């Protein structure tokens, strides 16, 4: 029995086994709902209070000109009330179409999209390659797996600092390149190389998750499918193309979506790799928005939150389309 078969029983739960009479069924149903609601209550309440309310509040902030000079604050024992005004959609207008919109928003937006696509593509292909290798029968497989998951196990902020040391002007990487008589880029100063380094570090951090998820997916593919394919004379490539990839479809669609969302909002890597104020051109929208809200004086809360709303809308629209596309291709198991 494999996971896939269990899943099939899971989705058939509507017509399970013999059932009791109608009255009993309704009573059971109510009882079931009651328990269901009791069980999801903590999450719903916490998400409602800690995410939902701030979200609305944040959205309201985007319609004002709030910054650290006019917000409510306490200095010593004096409490100063908020004095910011309601200014409607001006923040959005300014961000999207204002005179500085290209420098401040669109350039970061393009880079964020490129960053997301590049990182997720690299995560997925490298992760899949390693998962395929780990799925082969070979000596020391567990050992390799433990080593390969390490980047995920060590906290990101630790390894990012390690990368920062290695990428420094005369750090390890450049010393190696020097020894090989190759050019030594200014990893942390030059915009192109900053971006290159950011993608490299993020790829390094993100591959283990993909690899493990895909490895799990590979292991749940029924091995008789491969044998059948082999009997029919399918080549290795054909087996990969027509058995492995379809078998991985539902895992892939989930991890790719999560990967896109996580990478799009990846904060820690860029924030730590370049420091809070460094590398303005390598900042993606999230870190840039954080910089506007917390990294400069006066802190521009309204614009920062407006960036947040824009980011969230981009992701929501994207996720909806992605879901629809998955549903059309019948790849979604929700």
């Amino acid at each position, binding site marked *: 029995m494999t996971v896939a078969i269990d899943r099939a029983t899971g989705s058939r739960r509507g017509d399970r086994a013999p059932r009791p009479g109608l009255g009993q069924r309704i009573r059971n149903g109510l009882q079931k709902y009651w328990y269901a609601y009791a069980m999801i209550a903590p*999450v719903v309440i916490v998400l409602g209070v800690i995410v939902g309310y701030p979200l609305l509040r944040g959205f309201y902030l985007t319609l004002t000109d709030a910054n650290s000079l006019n917000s409510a604050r306490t200095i010593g024992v004096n409490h100063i009330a908020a004095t910011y005004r309601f200014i409607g959609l001006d923040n959005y207008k300014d961000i999207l179409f204002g005179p500085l919109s290209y420098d401040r928003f669109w350039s970061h937006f393009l880079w964020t999209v490129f960053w997301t696509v590049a990182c997720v593509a690299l995560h997925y292909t490298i992760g899949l390659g390693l998962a395929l290798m780990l799925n082969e029968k070979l000596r020391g497989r567990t050992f390799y797996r433990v080593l*390969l998951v390490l980047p995920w196990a*060590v906290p990101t902020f630790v390894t990012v600092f*390690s990368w920062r040391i290695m990428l420094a002007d005369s750090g390890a990487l450049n010393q190696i390149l020097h020894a090989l008589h190759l050019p030594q880029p200014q990893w942390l100063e030059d915009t192109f190389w900053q971006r290159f380094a950011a993608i490299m570090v993020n790829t*390094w951090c993100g591959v283990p998750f993909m690899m493990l*998820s895909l490895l799990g997916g590979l292991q749940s593919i029924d091995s008789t499918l491969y*044998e059948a394919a082999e009997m029919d004379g399918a080549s290795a490539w054909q087996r990969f193309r027509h058995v492995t990839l379809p078998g991985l479809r539902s895992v892939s669609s989930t991890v790719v979506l999560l990967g896109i969302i996580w990478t799009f909002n990846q904060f820690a890597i860029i924030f730590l790799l370049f*420091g809070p104020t460094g590398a303005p051109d390598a900042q993606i929208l999230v870190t840039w928005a954080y910089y506007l809200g917390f990294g400069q004086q006066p802190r521009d809360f309204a614009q920062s939150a407006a960036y947040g709303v824009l980011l969230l809308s981009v992701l929501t629209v994207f996720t909806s389309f992605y879901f629809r596309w998955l549903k059309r291709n019948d790849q979604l198991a929700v």
Partner: protein
Amino acid sequence: MSTTTLEKTQATPAPAARAPRRARRRGERGPLGAALLHGGLAVASLIALAPVAWLIFLSLGPEKDDYLHPGKILGKFTFSNYSFVLQHTAFFDWFKSTMIVAAGTTLIGVFVAATTGYAVSRMRFPGYKQLMWVLLLTQAFPIAILVVPMYEIFSELGLIDTYWALIVINCTTAVPYSAWLLKGYFDTIPFEIDEAGRVDGLSPFGTFFRLILPLARPGLAVAAFYNFITAVGEVAFATTFMLDDSKYTFAVGLQTFVSQHDAQWNYMAATAVLIAIPVSVFFYLVQKNLVTGLTAGGTKG
């Protein structure tokens, strides 16, 4: 249940009757294929290890500029960085904060995610689809929009600079994904077990606690690991909300070694190594379950 299933598939793909067939295919790979496989995995492992190994190496050099000429470190190995960090910095304060936050997030997060995951795995109730959608969408909430209003709320509640603030926030990011993951895992546990429990007179809560939770241990381990590393690795909120340097978590504390003007890389490296130890221990404890747990969540999507 799923553990055994998967291990069976990975250990022996086919019963004895098909063995010769497999053997022949294996033979086709030949020594070259095996060498390539080992080579590829070895190179990948090296790349995975290098930054961590480098950090350990640098932590043994006494000067803060040693990273510029690592060859010299070989001649003067010392643990002085470690003793400095342990004795003259707030390391233990940071350790305490991190552990409180991480343990709190893990315990509360896994429990809440488990009940939610169980509810969405076993029951179809009005609002089910919306809940799944919201769980997914919370992953997409950028900190930029949340950080300011959350800061306001928490400061009104007097929660700035407290561990609770970070625990709650970490839960909001970790729980949706854990719930999603655990739902997939619960789906792989046969429904007959629930039914048997109900027949024997257990309430749904009883079934959940006594039968399902023990069976779901691998899934719970993965969720715990995910919660733990999310909490330990959280940077943005910890940086913004923790003002008192005795309450810094490691993510904030480590940044104090690297300011604009002065970077004490040697101390930083030593601290980083010390941080990696408890996390690696935790990782080692759960790693056997990782593949199984992630699969269930992943295949279910």
